[in-house]
């Protein structure tokens, strides 16, 4: 096994363990912290694929900003294991069925995918480097890029409008 493979396995185990702990943990604060660990593991995978820009943006945006807002809400609501109301049993069963159905869809989609011909470019791909990514975004995909930025802008304006309502 090369170092890349060892790192891949460590990161994968970290990601899956973290994702399981997000669901299993009793305290919502711990769930958020485990989710942050999942983001770190995924960023590690991006680095293995030589996509450093994607890795660091994943950390800045998700682990650094969005998860902080999650923590804000959870800490202010002061959810403890004993004060949290027990959910309806039927709701839990429905959740399990919905999640299982999603898993089935994923497995079904992966089963038919042609995995052999699409091996990830570990360690030597250069599409994830910031230079190439920037060129691709602003040359080939400039219109979708601009449209999505307009979408973000409208979301921002919407947030301001909702926030202004007395």
């Amino acid at each position: 096994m090369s170092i890349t493979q060892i790192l891949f396995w460590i990161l994968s185990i970290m990601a899956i363990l973290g994702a399981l702990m997000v669901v299993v943990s009793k305290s919502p604060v711990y769930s958020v912290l485990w989710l942050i660990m999942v983001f770190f593991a995924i960023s590690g995978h991006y680095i293995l694929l030589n996509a450093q820009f994607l890795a660091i943006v994943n950390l800045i945006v998700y682990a650094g900003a969005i998860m902080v807002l999650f923590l804000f809400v959870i800490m202010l609501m002061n959810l403890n294991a004993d004060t949290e109301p027990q959910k309806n049993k039927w709701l839990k069963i429905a959740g399990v069925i919905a999640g299982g159905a999603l898993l089935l869809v994923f497995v079904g989609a992966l089963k038919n995918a042609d995995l052999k011909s699409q091996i990830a470019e570990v360690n030597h791909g250069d599409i994830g480097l910031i230079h190439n990514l920037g060129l691709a975004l602003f040359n080939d995909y400039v219109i979708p890029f601009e449209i999505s930025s307009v979408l973000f802008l409208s979301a921002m304006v919407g947030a301001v409008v909702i926030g202004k309502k007395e």
Partner: protein
Amino acid sequence: MVHPLLNVDLALIIEKCILISIIIGLSLIVAMYETWAERKVAAVIQDRRGPNRAGPAGILQPLADGLKLFMKEDIVPKMSNGFLFILGPGLAMLTAMMTSAVIPWSSHINAFGREISLQIADINIGILYIFGVVSMGVYGVMIGGWASNNKFSLMAALRGASQIISYELAMGLSIIALLMLTGSLSLKTIVDEQLDGIYNFLYQPLGFLIFLVCAFAECNRTPFDLSEAESELNFGYHQEYSSMKLGFYLFAEYVNMFISSAVMATLFFGGFDIPFVNDTAFGQAHGQNLLAILEGLSLAIKVAIFIFFFIWVRWTVPRFRYDQLMRLGWKGLIPLALVNMVVTGFIVLLKVNHWHF
């Protein structure tokens, strides 16, 4: 046959390990003497003597402070969250230390038949790495504040975190204008561009000003130390902490100050460039090693000036009110940074077009 796992440059690993230990040790020593400098400068500003008992001019005072913090009883509150209570100060210290990895402390030295670069990692996303680590620093404050199980700590932690997030935006926007000029995210490349040319400060004075204000806010320094406003929040997010856990939080602030001074010097003031000297010619005339040492000293002097500025402002300017802080961040600095970005972009485009519309 050599096992593929061992197929790495062992000398490189040893070299990097030594460099990392030196830089971590250096940041700790600098942080220690920042506390001493802070008390001395405060004393001068307030017309006092400052620490003068431990050693000549109180030079051993930081050691005495450290010893005091280590010797104190370490109290963990009964209703606190045990693991997170310890994780908080640890994270604060870890993130403060990690930022130093991408700062070029000097050019390379030649020793043991190798060219040793005095930068831990020259990655092509250098600045973004710093932003990533800084945004992780929020967790040290938030986890510590929440795990204390104290309402004042929690409120202070939320204040601190929302302040850091708000000012990170303006900081990022002010950097974008700079990146348009340099065309690279690597700090080494940014310094190399300034070696022969003009410092970025002269191209981006407004960007530097915004970055400076945001750096103050990110370090939780006065006038932005809202999370430690003792008149409103008792002691802040580290109220329940004692002994060296408290020391870690206080220390992390000083390490952050050191690193952000180094980042500002690197981005806007030429990094390790020696002012008014042609570095390459000097290196050829007097040898690369001497040049590297002098360049390191040059960066150290720039950093020291910034640290002095941090301290000077702290003992001169009173604290903001919280709504003033938020108004400055969102309604003052972010629009200003956006204008700076648009103007810079316009000029860069014009330059590419050879000054024709």
